[in-house]
């Protein structure tokens, strides 16, 4: 097979549609409402990593059942950080934690949690706010591979060091390493932080409501979806929130649908934190 480099890969719109149809028919995963430009980039990345021409990619998707899991892991972007956008965590502390503290038991859902960094960031925040024991965080993703990582809660020391600046900027006391046990070149999140977490598979596109939450955090997930699909998922979130529950999207993702703008009150315009109104 010829060496493929990123420069040469050009996927046409017709090929994109063809591949999406193929994946839907064979594997039951529907990528048709993913934003086209980033989906194309992911496909090009897989072709480059695996040194595949477009034809080879189709062939392997049809004939090698094990490849699909790998495909799924590459298609879904799993780049994440702890305390990504520190201002978001400051907003959570100031505007959402007081609400959560009024509950005997607060349930939180991190949708599209990837390898768990965000779940543990929220867990650390809640611990520092003395809410750890009365809250429970569900982390979900469509990708079983990353969920395995999330359950372990072990990250490379290099990564943890790179999160240290984020942590400092959140204004939380101490340092990020206070929440980890360092073992040579890896860091394991303290087991007390894992106690009230549960990671499981959930597909935002095809799965339904599975619990009722006081807060849902879904950051850097909507960016991969067309607005119609965003709306369908907003409906799922709306129905998964208790009355007055909070939906947190982060600073680049807003609720665009007029229908849902009426159903949510803006709590923080910059960080796109919303509160469910009506019922």
């Amino acid at each position: 097979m010829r060496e493929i480099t990123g420069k040469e890969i050009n996927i046409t719109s017709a090929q994109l549609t063809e591949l999406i149809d193929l994946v839907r028919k064979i594997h039951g995963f529907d990528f048709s409402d993913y934003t086209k430009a980033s989906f194309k980039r992911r496909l090009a990345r897989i072709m480059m990593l695996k040194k595949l021409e477009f034809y080879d990619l189709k062939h392997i998707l049809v004939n090698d059942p094990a490849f699909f899991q790998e495909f799924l892991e590459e298609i879904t972007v799993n780049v994440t950080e702890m305390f990504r956008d520190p201002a978001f965590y400051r907003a959570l502390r100031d505007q959402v934690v007081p609400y959560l503290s009024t509950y005997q038991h607060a349930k939180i859902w991190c949708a599209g949690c990837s390898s768990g960094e965000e779940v543990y960031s929220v867990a650390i925040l809640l611990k520092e706010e003395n809410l750890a024991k009365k809250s429970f965080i569900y982390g979900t993703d469509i990708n079983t591979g990353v969920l395995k990582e999330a359950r372990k809660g072990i990250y490379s020391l290099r990564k943890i060091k790179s999160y240290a600046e984020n942590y400092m900027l959140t204004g939380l006391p101490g340092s990020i390493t206070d929440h980890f046990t360092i073992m040579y070149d890896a860091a394991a999140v303290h087991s007390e932080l894992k106690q009230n977490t549960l990671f499981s598979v959930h597909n935002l596109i095809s799965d339904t409501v599975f619990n009722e939450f006081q807060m849902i955090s879904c950051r850097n997930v909507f960016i991969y979806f067309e607005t119609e699909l965003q709306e369908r998922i907003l409906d799922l979130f709306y129905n998964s929130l208790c009355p007055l529950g909070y939906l947190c999207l982060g600073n680049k993702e807003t609720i665009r649908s007029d229908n849902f703008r009426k159903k949510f009150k803006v709590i923080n315009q910059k960080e796109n934190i919303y509160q469910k109104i009506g019922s």
Partner: protein
Amino acid sequence: MAAKDDLIKRFKAAKFLLLGGSAGSFKLLFRMVKMFPHDFKKTVIIVIHRKKNFFSEIEKLFAENSRMLIREISDKDPIDSNAIYIAPANYHTLVEKGGYFSLDVSESVWYSKPSIDVTFESVADSYGKDCAAILFSGANQDGANGLLKLRQSGALTIAQNPEDAEMSEMPGAAIGIDAAEYILHTTEIFELLQNST
């Protein structure tokens, strides 16, 4: 002179003006933004490398000194024809065929997020022939491949002359792969802008 006339004509006709820069490009971009008239009938997209958590005052500074509307891009923002858009830190900015932006947090390209390549390539894919693009100073090779894709899709592509660039590697890389149709001195770039507005 024919080449120069062609350059001005095509620059004027472009609906999109893409500006990419890294180390050593900020002052030039700032000067350009100050020069754009309020009725500059183009969508200007600026991708400038910057660090995450660096609460840059770029948008504010640009907004205070520009006669055009300045926007930092949010996901699915519609693309207007008379505005300056700035790619946000820590995301790649993509352009969709339906006339809106989408963001992407995937791997850095050339250690950069935003990456100039990513934005340029996606614009090439959707609106290539309606574009003019200029690649300025920078210390890595980001932007070269993107500029090449733009050129291949019919865009007017310009690299700042590496002799003038504070960091010559970025425009140099683009020139090295023949991505730039024109290699212009900084003064020529500003002349072009003056002659086209």
